[in-house]
């Protein structure tokens, strides 16, 4: 009852937004008649090729105070795939990503409704400790974030030390494994005890990835991991993501459409807080169903 009236109240505004979007698009290029944007038009695709869900969001809405970050996003994330989230700035893709490991808990004004399922369990459930969730879902940020006072070694094993692992042989082993996974081991193996902040930007980012990998996460969230890096480092990280997907499920936010096309198995296109379209990367880039998607990937706006 309450829900319904809330929706009724909201409807005119949604339409207003749609109209303004339409106007924007017409201004930015010859647009075909486009369907009104709203989360409701999207229907989740069926599980393809027998792949199982690793995560799934159902009607996920994130608000900052009264501003809506993303609204009503229902999106499956399959096991061991790379899912790219694309869309223009401010479209809510990072907001969506940060909802997946409860990073919004740290922002006072953010509120999350809907469900985020990890292996069928809602991570926003009452009896769920976000700390445990974040140990299973790793995250890599836009800027490299090595802990500046720690050595390379200590950076990598930081997450292990948090869960109380102190055994040196085990830490050594995991450190080497994680650095190898992050394709950094060869470059730093002789100076594991030197500060992590002394590495180059690209190396620091791979160190951040190694640190996230050390705790053996099931899902890895990457928020524009190459946006602050030079092309060569970007290349290395992309190669890395390519090999990593054998072991982990990866959700990557990117501004770079070529990157999304190169890296991902599936792509989700976000626009003004809504999930517009999702599908295999091939489909999204060759035969998008929505006008807006086509316009964005063909570079007409964004």
């Amino acid at each position, binding site marked *: 009852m309450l829900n319904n009236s809330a929706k009724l109240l909201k409807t005119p505004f949604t339409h207003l937004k749609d109209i303004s979007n339409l106007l924007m698009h017409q201004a930015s290029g010859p647009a075909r008649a486009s369907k009104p944007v709203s989360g409701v038009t999207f229907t989740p695709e069926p599980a393809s090729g027998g792949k199982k869900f690793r995560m799934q969001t159902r009607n996920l809405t994130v608000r900052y105070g009264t501003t809506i970050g993303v609204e009503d996003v229902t999106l499956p994330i399959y096991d061991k795939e790379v899912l790219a989230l694309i869309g223009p700035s401010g479209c809510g893709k990072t907001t969506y990503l940060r909802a997946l490991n409860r990073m919004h808990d740290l922002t006072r004004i953010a509120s999350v409704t809907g469900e985020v399922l990890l292996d069928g369990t809602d991570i926003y459930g009452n009896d769920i400790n976000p*700390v445990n969730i974040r140990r299973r879902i790793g995250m890599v940020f836009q800027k490299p974030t090595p802990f500046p006072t720690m050595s390379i070694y200590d950076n990598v094993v930081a997450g292990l030390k948090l869960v109380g692992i102190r055994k040196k042989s085990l830490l050594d082993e995991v450190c080497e494994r994680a650095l190898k996974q992050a394709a950094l081991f060869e470059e730093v193996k002789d100076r594991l005890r030197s500060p992590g902040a002394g590495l180059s930007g690209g190396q620091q980012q791979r160190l951040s990835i190694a640190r996230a990998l050390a705790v053996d996460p099931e899902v890895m969230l990457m928020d524009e991991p190459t946006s602050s890096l030079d092309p060569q480092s970007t290349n290395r990280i992309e190669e890395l993501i390519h090999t990593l997907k054998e072991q982990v499920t990866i959700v990557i936010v990117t501004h770079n459409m070529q990157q999304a096309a190169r890296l991902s198995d599936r792509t989700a296109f976000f626009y003004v807080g809504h999930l517009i379209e999702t599908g295999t990367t091939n489909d999204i880039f060759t035969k998008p169903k929505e006008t807006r998607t086509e316009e964005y990937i063909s570079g007409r706006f964004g």
Partner: protein
Amino acid sequence: MSTDKDTRKNIRKLLRNPSAIYRRPGDLLFTFLVVTLGISIILLTLSMAFVLYGEGSAALREFGFFGFVRGTTWDPAVQLVFGAWPFLLGTVTTSVMALLISILPAIAVAIFTAEYAPRWLANIIDNLIQLIAAVPSVVIGIWGIFVLAPWLRDTVYLPVFMWAESSYPQLLPILGNPMGYGMTTATIVLALMIVPYTTALTKDAIRSVPQEQREACRALGATRWEVIRMAILPYARGGILAGAILSLGRAIGETMAVAMLIGNKNTLPFTIFGAGATMPSVIVNEFREAVESLHLSSLMAIGFTLFIIALIVNLFAAYLTRKFSIKGGQVI
């Protein structure tokens, strides 16, 4: 249209001859003002040091700088011998102890208000703490005389003294006379008085830790405390250290409250409960009665020594900030 053309021509002219930009009267006036004021601060500081040295030079010549600083006798009445060592010792002991007592609570309060407390509570605590800094030193001194000192005497000093008297009489010479006014009382009041500084500076240091560092640590599965221990405190350590040292500077220079509570005794040995003196307290207590020119000069020389110590402390704080501060993820 033509004015637009003129403007563009002017801009082009200015750009071709960049020095012309600085010849505009407004710029010239402003540059003059800034440079003059900047230099005048330096001159003021130097002249202060110079005057203190000049006025104190008679005493420093009489006893020699190290003789003066290391001299343990301060006798303005009979021998006219002046040594600043008791006061130096008093200053260092009270302020270092005050820093040690206050630093952990101050850091804890800073962490609580910056990281744990809801905003309204943090604001209340912040304002209350800033209020301590706003209370005039002499008012805190009065409160110390009428409230804190008698309370400490009755509930702490006397019981401890009685206990020592019956069980460990050999401790009595170290404990000293438990009259309420003395080194410990002064130290406790000093500790209270520097809490606002340490807290504010620590909080600044904590606030300057980039959000990305906290998030990176959180994303690894760290709890709130683990984020503080792993990401925030290591990153903020330079600022916290420098804040502590600057607070030490405050404690060293604090005058009125200390002079009112320390008991003012010019001869060593100082004891835990017993009376003592610090460099500022002896200056404020004696400058009115300094009829002998050597006495006045000695007080000035103490002022000069205090100036030097304050300078060293500040330079040390600046050095620590540089050595431990982290900018843009790089350890400098």
